């Protein structure tokens, strides 16, 4: 039943999404993206997906590397996992928001730990797995955020 509903909703958006995707891509492609994920396969897949929208996507395998990268370059959007070695996503986001208050943050996590805090500190929050619609929503929100 759930599957049926999901599929229906998925199909209903298809026409609409079709033309819109390219427009979205054009709007957001100039933004600098930082992506943190410790799981290699996940990072690989997600980075590839992000690259389809954004020209510049930097990735880091933990929070510490991510934060170091953030300090060296101007990023518009940060995608991050939460449970990561060395520095977790939450601490990294806190540190980032101290430097750049306008940064747009998206949390993609499998964890339920400190959910409330994440929601408070992130602009967008999604639990894994992330659907295609979720990603489109992210794009739209970015468009809204930066008035593109």
């Amino acid at each position, binding site marked *: 039943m759930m599957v049926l509903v999901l599929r229906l909703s998925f199909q209903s958006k298809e026409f609409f999404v079709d033309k819109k995707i390219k427009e979205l891509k054009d709007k957001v492609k100039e933004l600098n993206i930082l992506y943190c994920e410790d799981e290699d396969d996940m990072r690989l897949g997600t980075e590839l*997906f992000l690259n389809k929208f954004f020209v510049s996507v930097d990735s880091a395998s933990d929070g510490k590397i991510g934060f170091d990268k953030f300090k060296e370059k101007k990023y518009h959007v940060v995608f991050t996992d939460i449970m990561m070695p060395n520095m977790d996503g939450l601490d990294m986001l806190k540190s980032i928001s101290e430097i750049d208050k306008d940064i747009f943050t998206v949390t993609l996590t499998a964890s339920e730990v400190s959910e409330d805090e994440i929601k408070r500190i992130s602009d967008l929050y999604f639990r894994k797995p*992330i659907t295609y619609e979720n990603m489109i929503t992210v794009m739209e929100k970015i468009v809204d955020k930066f008035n593109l």
Partner: protein
Amino acid sequence: MEKRSKIIILLTILFIMTMVFIYLFTSLNMRQRIESALDSHLYKLQVNYELLLHQQKVTANAAYQSTTNKKYVIDILSKTKGASKKKLDYLRKELYNKLKPKYKILYGKGVLQYTFTLPNNKVFLRMHKPSKYGDSIDGYRYSFEYVNKTHKPISGFEQGKTAHGFRNVFPIFDKKHNYIGTMDISFSSDFLLGYLINVSKIYSHFLIKKTVFNIKSWKRDDVDLNYIPSYENKDYVMSDTYHKHKHKQQYKYKHLLNNIKNFEPLKEKIYKNMKIGKKFSLYHQYNDKSVVISFYPIKNIKDKKVVAWIVSYDHDDFIDLTLKMSHNVRILAFFIFSMLFYFIYRVLNQKEILDGLVEKQTKKLMESEQNLKLLNENLELTIEKEVLKNQEKDRLLYQQSKMAAMGEMIGNIAHQWRQPIAIISMWANNIIVDIDMEEVDNDNLKKYAMKINEQTLHLSQTIDDFRNFFLPNKEKTSFILKNSVDKTMSLLSASFKTHNIEVIENIEMVEIFSLENEFTQSILNIIKNAKDILVTLPKSSRRLIFINIYKNDLYVNIDIIDNGGGISEKIIDKVFEPYYTTKHQSQGTGIGLYMTETIITKHLGGNIYVENVNYDYEDVNYKGAKFMITLPLIKELND
């Protein structure tokens, strides 16, 4: 109750019988005693009477001897034969004068009549009444006739026309032994009575039969006798003795007589006895004193018929005593036996009551035994129930722990799966976005699909791991402990990674023969328990779990140590109890450690302990809980 009334009836009958027996016995005894007392009275009367008669005979005999020894008596009497009236008068006068002094003496000795008769039965001289003579005594003086005929002496009671008395008639012979007449010495009954009263102290009187005695014609001056109707018997008259013999007890005596006069039953008894004509005595209660009345018959000299009675009255203390004693004995016996029977009744009743009590108690005992039996049965049932309940509880606990473990596993699976699913989803997103952007490239698509397949393999592997973990081992197998620990850790890897938990293993290669899945579940529970406490530690501190496995000769030791700060000493003894948990509801059910202990001790035959430990690791001091499991090395034991 019925038995009691039976006892009462029986005892009452027995009591009455006893009383009757005692009454009869005392009556018999009393009668015998009274009889003998009466006999003694009668005997006394008889002895005294006979003594007196004998004395009278002796006196009479002496008088006869002394009279006939006198020559002039014989001479005078011899001359009477054929003598003229004048000569007779002369002779009579001479004899009278000569015997006058002698008569005086005899009179003093109680002689009433001193009479001489001639062989022709005519009175020659009455010394007591010399004026009357010459009359014939034919027909009414048998004694004289008898002596005249037989010339032999005779003595006895004789009833005369107007008088009566005890006669002693002797024949008188002259020198040639010719019969010349009779001499009579008579004693009055009055004298006899006087003697009895004054000498023998017997109060008595004479009764004389009316038929032979004519009171009316009995008026004589010479004899001072007073006759009145008998008090005892209407057919008799009695000599009014008390009137004559003054005595201090006379009044009382008369009083007694008067009493008898008015007492008909006694009179009747006396009448009957007198008709029989034999001596008898009886007693009569008067003023609480018994009066003994004795009757002694006096027979006529002629025909030996009873014509008079001598009756004596006497008090008898012995009879009084006997009566009183019998009475007292009866009363005493009544009380004694009453008490005795009451006592017997009490004893029997007591016994009855006791028996009743015993019976009751026995009944009670039996009842209580029954109850006890019932109780026992109930107890057995209750125990059985409890055992069943416990088994059910254990089963339920086991079930719950299974469910909890399953929940745990599902949680773990979800955790293990979330990442691969997320990856798959992301590769799928790439496909979709390529399509949407109309940049579909077959090589890329293939790459994406292969990435997805990789992840599905991972998913499949996870499922297999968990399923194997959950398949219960029915049979013991040989397995290397290290592999079991690795399997366990692989299930938890995602979770441990998420929570930054470090697992430090120091494991010897030990192979044991046991139930592998049970073992892994046990250590999983302990590790999970450690994990649950470790996640509460601040991020800054390290989260450590040590797994040490080492063996000695017979046992393998598995130590699992955390750095969670240890278990509170208050509850450390209770951690293996079911439903005991310090954790928040969402974290645990409180049966994990209980089930672990059950599995280790009951299924695997080992032991499990817990203690708090302090230890150094990489120059930092940590505090935590140490779970120690010892399992037997079956292989070696089998050797």
